[in-house]
């Protein structure tokens, strides 16, 4: 069923009785061409693009819980392509372009809102660094506008410009950045993949990999063995646990990132705003709540909850740039598990096991990458070669010395 404004009106007039489920709930077949483990944003996007762009439709997406139950349903919904390094920026700009055409592409309202993202600078060196970053972005075809303090003041007069410790000296603005309704991304991709014949099998846990002479032949699941020519794992957050079943150790630590939402407020923030002297990023949802987050808690964990010191730290970051939110009440907070990689950048690669492919290590920036990650993973699965924008996301890059370390902090996952 395709969606349109006309259909919404018609269904509204006829009691909304004509809507059908957006995807099937099929039983697993004995074998597929490709199995994707994990029906999160990246796994569903990979299945969607496999079917749509690469003509591979005999695909199953296997999910332990319900689709979209992981980080695609738990993030702060920000999309942007404001990276510095050549290994990253073309990939994220590719993702940004896919976001821009996404809703027409998969005929689903994902509420893509290009309200812009503003990164504040608080010192002259930081402004210089932003100028460099902006040039790097523009070289990759992205948009970036360097603002001085007056430019920021025009856009966001409510910020604390004269803060004694963190005065705002300017910022870098990416007008095409913004927010996307995160759940709808998973639903849209799931529906699009399902329509093209992909089986999305929920409540089916992968318990192991079927190996024959060192080649991956499929997966063992709680609903029986399912064979496949290729198996792609896209389970960021649980990568360590799942890949351990194939005997692999990864350049990844699992950490928890907390996020927060306040009570609903009148329209307040024009777009996404980030604090440059600490770590705080905030946007306002369409319901009015301020959605924000900051640093990861910083210790290995698989518990989807964090601790209070980070709550305090994040709120202090918010207060440092916009004291007006001091009396806003926090409505909810939650935590999600991040694949923190050793250089802060992700992996989309074949493993050393034939037939087994890996997508993970997204740190806490996986949501914005969803379309490109899915596209590039599909490209790799279909053609056995990396997409031109994802050639650097190799698992062996530490061995070769070609890390993609945006912050330059080294192999310390809790600092990325």
């Amino acid at each position, binding site marked *: 069923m395709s969606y349109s404004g006309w259909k919404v009106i018609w269904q509204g007039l006829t009691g909304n009785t004509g809507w059908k489920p957006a995807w099937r709930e099929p039983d697993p077949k004995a074998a597929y061409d490709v199995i994707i483990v994990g029906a999160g944003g990246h796994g569903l996007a990979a299945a969607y693009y496999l079917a749509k762009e690469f003509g591979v439709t005999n695909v199953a997406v296997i999910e332990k819980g319900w689709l979209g139950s992981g980080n695609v349903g738990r993030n702060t919904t920000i999309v942007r392509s404001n990276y510095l390094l050549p290994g990253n920026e073309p990939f994220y700009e590719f993702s940004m372009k896919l976001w821009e055409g996404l809703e027409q592409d998969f005929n689903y309202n994902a509420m893509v809102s290009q309200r812009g993202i503003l990164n504040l600078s608080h010192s002259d060196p930081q402004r210089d660094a932003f100028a460099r970053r902006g040039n790097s972005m523009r070289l990759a075809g992205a948009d970036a506008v360097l603002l001085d303090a007056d430019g920021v003041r025009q856009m966001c007069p409510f910020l604390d410009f004269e803060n004694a410790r963190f005065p705002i000296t300017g910022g870098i603005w990416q007008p095409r950045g913004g927010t996307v309704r995160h759940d709808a991304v998973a639903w849209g991709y799931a529906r699009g993949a399902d329509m093209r014949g992909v089986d999305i099998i929920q409540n089916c846990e992968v318990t192991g990999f079927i190996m024959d002479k060192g080649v991956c032949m499929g997966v063992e699941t709680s609903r029986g063995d399912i064979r496949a020519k290729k198996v792609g794992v896209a389970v960021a957050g649980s990568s360590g646990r799942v890949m351990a079943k194939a005997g692999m150790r990864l350049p990844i*630590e699992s950490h928890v990132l907390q996020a927060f939402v306040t009570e609903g407020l009148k329209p307040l923030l024009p777009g996404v705003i980030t604090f440059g002297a600490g770590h705080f990023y905030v946007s306002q949802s369409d319901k009015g709540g301020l959605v924000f987050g900051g640093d990861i808690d910083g*210790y*290995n964990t698989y*518990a989807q909850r964090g601790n209070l010191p980070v709550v305090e730290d994040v709120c202090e970051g918010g207060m440092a740039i916009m004291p007006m939110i001091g009396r806003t009440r926090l409505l909810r907070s939650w935590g999600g598990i991040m694949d923190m990689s050793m250089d802060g950048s992700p992996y989309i690669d074949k493993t050393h096991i034939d037939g087994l492919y890996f997508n993970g290590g997204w740190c806490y920036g996986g949501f914005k990458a969803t379309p490109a990650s899915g596209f590039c993973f599909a490209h790799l699965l279909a053609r056995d070669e990396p997409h031109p924008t994802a050639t650097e996301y190799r698992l062996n890059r530490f061995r070769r010395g070609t890390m993609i370390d945006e912050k330059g902090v080294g192999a310390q996952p*809790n600092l990325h």
Partner: protein
Amino acid sequence: MIINHPLLGPRDAQEFTYLGDASLIDRPDWQDENAAEKFHDYLYIRDNPAGQHRELWYHEQGDRSWLVVTRDTLTHEITNVELARDVAIAGGRGR
């Protein structure tokens, strides 16, 4: 989280900074035949278990000792705290 420091008693985890897996104590020998490969695994590859995890915490806002904390990564429950010094000596490092 409260870390029960072997010398100072219960301390708030906020006083500490976190390094990572306690296997980082066991730095490979640079003269080993396959030292490059060992250092690659030592620096970049992690067990990253869901469950009991032995990890290094540094009491930066306290007595600046390194601790080996055994903590459950599913519940955050801490079951054992040792001085990293003792662990290293017991493992045959140091004099």
